[in-house]
């Protein structure tokens, strides 16, 4: 499949946004949705809707099968060993909260250490912070270097005999650094430390293989993967899902409920309490099929080419300073512009239909380290083109002109 006409598959690009063609450079925040995903939600609600896993009427059985089909699609997409290692959550945030809460409850005690990095998004710091309060757990941050990278050596340096879990990002949403997660996992396992990977930025852009990577937990955000909002995925090795206590209690996750006691259901129901985001799960199956049809390798190649091109264009622009120069970089271009605050950049770019993000991108620890309160960020998706990056540069020149 050619990537040239891929924009046509995303209905949002056929509409004018404030009289402009949309130049969408905010995919690290959330990606746009292809027509097949939008249609699947509509079709499910109009022709096939029922709750799943409970009733035995025709619609309920059919909906349950569709829901479980997505689980299998995800399992294959990330090459997990077992389909029951895929847990649906309301987002990657909930996936990380689930692990921090249940793992913390069962295995952590006062003085134990959780090792994060300075690159982490707030969603991979705040859930662990609660354990500081409730259990007296210590949180350590492996340092980011001047390139915006966190190296294997830095991780190793920060591991002590108190380290009980390592939770790190796969791909930084600010510097674009792709961490050596496989090597980190190998190192951690040699010291019997489990590893959680925040894959919010990894999953939409990089080929995943859970059996090869061997991590214990991997959190995915579906709305960043051309899928619906309100849905995330926790991949966890089966032994953890069996060993850890349930997270939330409610319908669907139990085996037997009596006044004197409760037994819990089998996997994956144990972690899917209450009515799940059924339509979103079913529509997410189409997101996976959409990615598979193009091939994640092709998406990665396309985005890497664009990232290099974008860096070239922005480097030529003397007033732009790129943030982060990591060894292996994902499709994130964070920058500052001399004399113009990122918010002013974002407002001026928006006037041309160029959608970027400005602020701390939910990474205040990282920005504090950079000594910046805010940066501007252009992030890419499968639908972006070189023309989008040319337009970005042109609009940045307009900012310079206004502020000259």
């Amino acid at each position, binding site marked *: 499949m050619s990537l040239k006409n891929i924009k046509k598959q995303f209905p949002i690009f056929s509409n004018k946004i404030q009289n402009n063609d949309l130049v969408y450079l905010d995919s690290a925040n959330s990606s746009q949705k292809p027509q097949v995903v939008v249609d699947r939600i509509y079709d499910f609600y109009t022709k096939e809707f029922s709750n799943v896993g409970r009733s035995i009427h025709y619609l309920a059985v059919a909906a349950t099968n569709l829901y479980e089909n997505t689980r299998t699609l995800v399992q294959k997409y990330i090459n997990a060993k077992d389909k029951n290692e895929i847990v649906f959550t309301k987002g990657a945030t909930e996936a990380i909260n689930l692990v921090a809460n249940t793992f913390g409850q069962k295995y952590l005690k006062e003085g134990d250490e959780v090792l994060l990095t300075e690159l982490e998004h707030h969603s991979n710091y705040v859930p662990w912070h609660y354990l500081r309060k409730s259990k007296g757990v210590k949180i350590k941050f492996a340092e980011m270097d001047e390139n915006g990278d966190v190296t294997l050596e830095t991780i190793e340096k920060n591991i002590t005999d108190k380290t009980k879990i390592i939770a790190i990002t796969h791909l930084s949403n600010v510097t674009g650094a792709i961490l050596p997660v496989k090597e980190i996992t190998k190192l951690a396992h040699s010291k019997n430390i489990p590893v959680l990977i925040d894959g919010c930025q990894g999953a939409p852009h990089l080929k995943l293989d859970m059996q090869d990577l061997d991590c214990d937990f991997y959190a995915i955000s579906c709305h960043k993967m051309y899928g619906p909002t309100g849905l995330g995925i926790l991949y966890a090795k089966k032994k953890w899902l069996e060993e850890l206590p349930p997270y939330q209690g409610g319908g669907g996750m139990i085996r037997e409920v009596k006044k004197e006691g409760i037994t819990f259901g089998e996997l994956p129901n144990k972690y899917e309490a209450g009515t799940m985001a059924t339509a979103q799960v079913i529509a997410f199956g189409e997101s996976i099929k959409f990615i598979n049809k193009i091939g994640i390798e092709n998406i990665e190649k396309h985005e890497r080419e664009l990232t290099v091109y974008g860096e070239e264009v922005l480097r030529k622009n003397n007033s732009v300073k790129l943030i982060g120069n990591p060894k292996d970089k994902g499709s994130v271009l964070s920058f500052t512009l001399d*004399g*113009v*605050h*990122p*918010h*002013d950049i974002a*407002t*001026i770019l928006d*006037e041309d239909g160029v959608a970027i993000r*400005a*602020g*701390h991108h939910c990474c*205040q620890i990282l*920005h504090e380290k950079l000594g910046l*309160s*805010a940066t501007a960020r252009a992030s890419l998706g499968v639908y972006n083109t070189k023309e989008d990056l040319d337009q970005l540069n042109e609009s940045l020149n307009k900012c310079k002109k*206004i*502020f000259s």
Partner: protein
Amino acid sequence: MDLKELYQEIILDHGKNPRNLGKFENFNKDAEGYNPLCGDKVHVYLKLNEDKEIEDISFEGHGCAISMASASIMTELMKDKKNLEVKEILNDFLDMIKQSPELKSQLIKEDEKTKLMSLSGVKRYPMRVKCATIAWHALASAMNYKKDENNSEKFI
């Protein structure tokens, strides 16, 4: 043309060269305004006399052109103002930024009105209203003003 309305000369000037920037030594009241959405901060310092009159005012902070210009213009305007005057101007400004087409207070001179009205362009940019008001909320807090229970947009 909308951008020109938002980024008027007065704003660009005050944004680039903010007046009354920096903490002064003998302040006796201060408060910080913070926008959690973007991390922008404005810290307002006041020297109030016994009658709660502003004898001196300055600010420190970092933020976009709008928030810096607004803080700069505010500090220029509020110097030597009495407590009730500060409150009236503050409420008038916040009302104008959010909804009213004009400033109503008789306490604001014509040239001052022009400066304040240069910030009215943010009305078209709802995400930027907070930038224009961050310093003013910090001032309200330093002056110990409370929100009106019947009208959360108004300070009493």
